[in-house]
């Protein structure tokens, strides 16, 4: 089976989408972007392939299959958690002098994380879009904070060890083989009996022998210039977002993408071709990272922010435009007794307000608007956007897909599928079309 791969190496997350010849999505993969781009891309790609295989193998089992798929991912996480614990030990023991003292302290902390692995990774936590790094980090730091509050431990030392260890673990590619993980996952799924397990495993082995053959691929995103791809296989993320949004919602004429560190407003025509765009770079104010900071500041997980903000009864006015200062303003507001949800609602609104300016600059919202990028997963942002768009432009259809974060990668895959048609005028491209420096 021929397939087409789109890779979006974003500043925060790396995404992969696999299409079949009918331009249907057969697999998606996502991971957080990390220092080793090759690893990030490889992880995303493997996830997409695994996703395609899993849906082939487990798809027929319906809900029970979905359960098994979750268990499959759980296996991967457990494996990485074991690696992390081990790495923490070795980093700590390498510290001259205090190593001997730090190893057991670190190990105790890690044990508290391992103890709650079920709770961390189970229950579909990963489906909601949290990454291993975030889940484990949050847990580790709350354990550390707790221990330090009792005044027993050296915060800076231990957090340093942890930071170093997680970096190491993230940047190595070491996974449980597909079949092993599948087998373990099936065992963990009580609704699947032994016979069914055997049969499924056999389809699994067969699937692995005949994986989707990747006929073409296109890379895009912030880090695209670093992708190990031929130059013709790289497209500006503006073009990919436009194309991807068009594929999901053909009537869309405006695309708003809010990613980790930039915001783009794109106007497209009836074929998904870009007619104009505006982007903000230079300053991270009002992008996804802003929310990351806030989540850190409040000790919340990223996915919890939006729902909490939605419970606000009287949103605050937030004026800080700087991502870093917003954290301070938040602290100040909480200190004077503002409710957390009201402050959060204000923060979300501030982000969307900035995006509205960009939208206006790109030409406004004259027809259907599609909201893409990671921030489109945040219900408070989508809510604020809906309200502001209708206030300033009148009633407009706003499309938001559950898979909005994959829009760029989808656009890339579509360019790959459509045989990378490059108009004469730009051929041959002497130099890489993109530069991120």
């Amino acid at each position: 089976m021929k397939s087409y791969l789109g890779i979006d190496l974003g500043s925060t997350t790396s995404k992969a989408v696999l299409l079949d010849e009918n331009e249907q999505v057969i697999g998606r993969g996502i991971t957080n972007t990390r220092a080793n781009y090759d690893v990030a891309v490889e992880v995303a790609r493997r996830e997409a392939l695994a996703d395609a295989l899993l849906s082939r193998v487990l798809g027929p089992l319906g809900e029970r299959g979905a359960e098994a798929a979750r268990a499959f991912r759980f296996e991967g996480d457990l494996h990485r958690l074991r690696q992390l614990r081990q790495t923490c030990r070795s980093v700590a023991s390498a510290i001259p002098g205090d190593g001997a003292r730090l190893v057991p302290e670190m190990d105790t902390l890690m044990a508290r994380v391992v103890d709650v692995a079920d709770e961390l990774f189970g229950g579909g936590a990963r489906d909601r879009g949290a990454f291993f790094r975030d889940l484990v980090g949050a847990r580790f730091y709350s354990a550390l904070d707790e221990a330090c509050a009792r005044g027993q431990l050296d915060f800076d030392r231990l957090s340093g060890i942890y930071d170093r260890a997680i970096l190491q673990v993230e940047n190595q590619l070491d996974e449980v083989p597909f079949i092993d993980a599948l087998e373990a996952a099936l065992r963990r799924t009580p609704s699947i009996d032994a016979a069914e397990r055997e049969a499924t495993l056999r389809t699994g082995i067969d699937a692995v022998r005949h994986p989707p053959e990747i006929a073409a691929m296109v890379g895009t995103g912030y880090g695209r210039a670093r992708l190990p791809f031929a130059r013709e296989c790289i497209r500006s993320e503006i073009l990919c977002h436009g194309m991807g949004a068009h594929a999901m919602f053909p009537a869309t004429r405006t695309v708003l993408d809010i990613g980790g560190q930039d915001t783009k407003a794109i106007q497209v025509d009836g074929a998904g071709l870009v007619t104009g765009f505006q982007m903000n770079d230079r300053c991270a104010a009002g992008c996804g990272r802003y929310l990351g900071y806030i989540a850190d500041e409040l000790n919340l997980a990223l996915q919890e922010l939006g729902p909490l903000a939605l419970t606000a009864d009287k949103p605050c006015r937030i004026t800080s435009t700087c991502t870093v200062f917003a954290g301070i303003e938040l602290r100040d507001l909480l200190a004077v007794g503002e409710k957390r949800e009201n402050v959060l609602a204000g923060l979300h609104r501030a982000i969307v307000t900035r995006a509205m300016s960009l939208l206006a600059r790109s030409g406004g919202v004259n027809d259907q608007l599609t909201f893409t990028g990671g921030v489109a997963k945040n219900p408070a942002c989508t809510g604020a956007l809906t309200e502001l768009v209708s206030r300033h432009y009148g009633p407009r259809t706003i499309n938001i897909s559950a898979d909005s974060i994959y829009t760029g990668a989808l656009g890339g895959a579509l360019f790959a599928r459509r045989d990378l048609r490059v108009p004469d005028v730009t051929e041959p491209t002497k130099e890489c079309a993109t530069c991120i420096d």
Partner: protein
Amino acid sequence: MHRLTTAGIDIGSSAIKVAVVDEEADGQITVRSAVSERIRRRAPAQVLGLIFERALAEARVGAAADLAYIASTGEGDVAQGLRTGHFYGMTSHARGGLILEPRARTVLDVGALYARAIQVDEHAKVLSYRMTSQCAAGTGQFVENIARYLGVRLDEVGDISNAAQRAEPVSGICAVLAETDVINMVSRGIATGEILRGIHESIAQQLAKLLRAARGKGPVLMTGGLAADAGLRAALTRRLGEDDKAPEILSHPRSLYAGAIGAAAWGAFRHRKLERAAPIDQEAGLA
């Protein structure tokens, strides 16, 4: 005149610093204790309570009531109820800076979120100053983020940077975007030291601008958390060296406490003044 014992509390955005000092009859200041504690997501008032006691204990002062004056600086409201009066950040950093290093004619305070350049005369009189606002590019928070990403401890940052042969240029100056730049650099295989040195160059550029705007003259004493960063000091020296009259860049082991020490010293000054004058404006004070 008699000896006075006073305390200064410097409430920063990332850490609280407390100093207890003696002012002799001749105006000489001796620091009895200086302590600091990171706030780290705790309520600042709670942190203050914690370390104020510690500062008193280290200074062998029995109780707050034994102090002639308790001066706050920085986000002073946190110390409401405890303080006698308040001095603004640059006033106290100027004084504290000169107590630590009498030769200094400019104090450059670089904390977690703000940077301030203060030009002073030999009596710690503030002649002119500039401070950053709105944008946290080029301050401590930024270094912390990067160090954390690189898995380097803050107190190692300076030496690693100084050991590097070259600096990897950082294009953006944004505290947040630079982080992604750094991810990118690591991915290109750039050595940690070169990245840090690039970061230091970029902060130094910001600080040089600030110094220029405040018309800072030498010698420059660095205060605040980043004064401890030898890599930044070296970068700043290099950067200013491009100008004709490059000032000398100094630091002091107690640079972090300059604000607290300065506030405590002003507290003594104010106490004597209030003692002399009819005590009318005690409340209006300097707050």
